[in-house]
């Protein structure tokens, strides 16, 4: 899904030195452009980088081709990008929590391709791991098969699911160090470690940036080699859905 933009790339600030990837938000923003393919971590907005998505919206970038688990909620996670009509195409496992995205899809304004969630995660991982794709039997005999090649492999029928990469990937970490090593926070991990590996350029937003050596090497989830830039998070600026309800269902 990656399309190069060499001229624009040449004009950008050079990537930070490999020993200190911490950059101001403005620097990271130089890598966002109209029509870009952007992959994001998060599950219903949980684990979607709040500061980067807000900056993307405020920068007015449009015609986005997005890859992520879902469309968030209208005012949570990637949701506002849909509400503000910045998205042309989406590859996701569901959009049920963002009715605005559903309406745009029904009106033909937003092109949506659905992928079973586990398959989507593996396709992103495959992209990040330098593989061509994955072979799965999930969705055989359903519409998930549409447009997919079928293979008979050692007696087993499988679908060929191509790998996914993106021009830019954005992730949300609990902690990062200047080398780009990342650890995540509980269920905010979800797609983030996979997305981090699948970007041509990966930008990590972290709640806390610690000195090199402070993260336990045994506990680092994403090795810094996959991360190009680290920006300081300004924290969650939306209200979670459960905070908006009077009572839990």
């Amino acid at each position, binding site marked *: 899904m990656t399309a190069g933009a060499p001229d624009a790339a040449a004009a950008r600030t050079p990537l930070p030195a490999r020993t200190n990837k911490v950059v101001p938000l403005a620097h990271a923003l130089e890598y966002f452009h109209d029509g870009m393919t952007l992959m994001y971590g998060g599950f219903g907005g949980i*684990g979607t980088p709040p500061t980067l998505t807000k900056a993307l919206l405020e920068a007015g970038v449009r015609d986005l081709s997005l890859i992520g688990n879902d469309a968030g909620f209208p005012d949570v996670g990637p949701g506002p990008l849909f509400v503000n009509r910045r998205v042309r195409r989406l590859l996701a496992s569901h959009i049920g929590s963002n009715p605005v995205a559903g309406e745009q899809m029904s009106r033909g304004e937003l092109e949506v391709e659905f992928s079973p969630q586990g398959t989507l995660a593996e396709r992103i991982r495959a992209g990040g791991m330098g593989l061509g794709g994955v072979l799965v039997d999930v969705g055989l005999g359903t519409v998930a098969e549409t447009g997919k090649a079928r293979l008979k492999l050692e007696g087993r029928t499988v679908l060929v699911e191509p790998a996914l990469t993106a021009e830019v990937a954005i992730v949300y970490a609990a902690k990062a160090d200047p080398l780009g090593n990342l650890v995540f926070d509980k269920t905010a991990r979800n*797609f983030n470690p996979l997305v981090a590996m699948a970007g041509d350029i990966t930008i990590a937003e972290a709640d806390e940036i610690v000195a090199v050596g402070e993260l336990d090497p045994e506990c680092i989830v994403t090795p810094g080699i996959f991360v190009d830039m680290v920006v300081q998070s300004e924290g969650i600026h939306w209200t979670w859905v459960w905070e908006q309800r009077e009572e839990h269902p």
Partner: protein
Amino acid sequence: MSAGANGRAGGSNPAAAVDVRRRIAERAAREIKPGTVVNLGIGVPTLVADYVPHDIGVVFQAENGMLGYGVAPLPGHEDGHLTNAGGLPVTETPGASYFDSTVAFGMIRRGRLDMTILGALQVSAHGDLANWLVPGRRVPGMGGAMELAQKARKVVALTTHTSKDGEPKIVAECTLPLTAAHCVHLIVTELAVIEVTAEGLVLREVAAGHSLEEVATLTGAPLLVPTEPGVF
């Protein structure tokens, strides 16, 4: 996340709708065996956790990347980064673990889940499940439902017995796009517990206060009725 039975039954009476949701969830909880690993879908299936005793060693898996989540936290103690797949705050139980989405679905595809309880839009007499798409009307996407329906060792489908318009949701053949074919083992509604067998649908239990005839009339596929179905 998957779409599902979201308490549309009960007509315009919200209290009745809540009652129907609770009745289905309470009955479904009795299917969960001690020491098993279970994934609960969005909507009514999420409520099932409220009826499972805490001391029987059930491990709840959430496909957003957690094994071993516990009850909802007390108000004021919620953590926005500690939720189930429906986005509702949960807590850690001892031995809980977090992992990324490939690991979450790896354990599902590999057949490590003893049971999943999912909402349904339609279930067929062969155990086909449709729960993610109503063409032209509702396009939520399949989320993780295809993996769960196809790969969990036992699939329990929860649904109101009929749609808001009174149409049977248990049908001879699904007319909606499938989530997975031949996957459902047991159907629990507010009126009945129905087992999917090679011979067809077997009526195992009828809800107290309802008759066999009523259940049969509201079911869109033939029901095999044992001499004495149970009551719940």
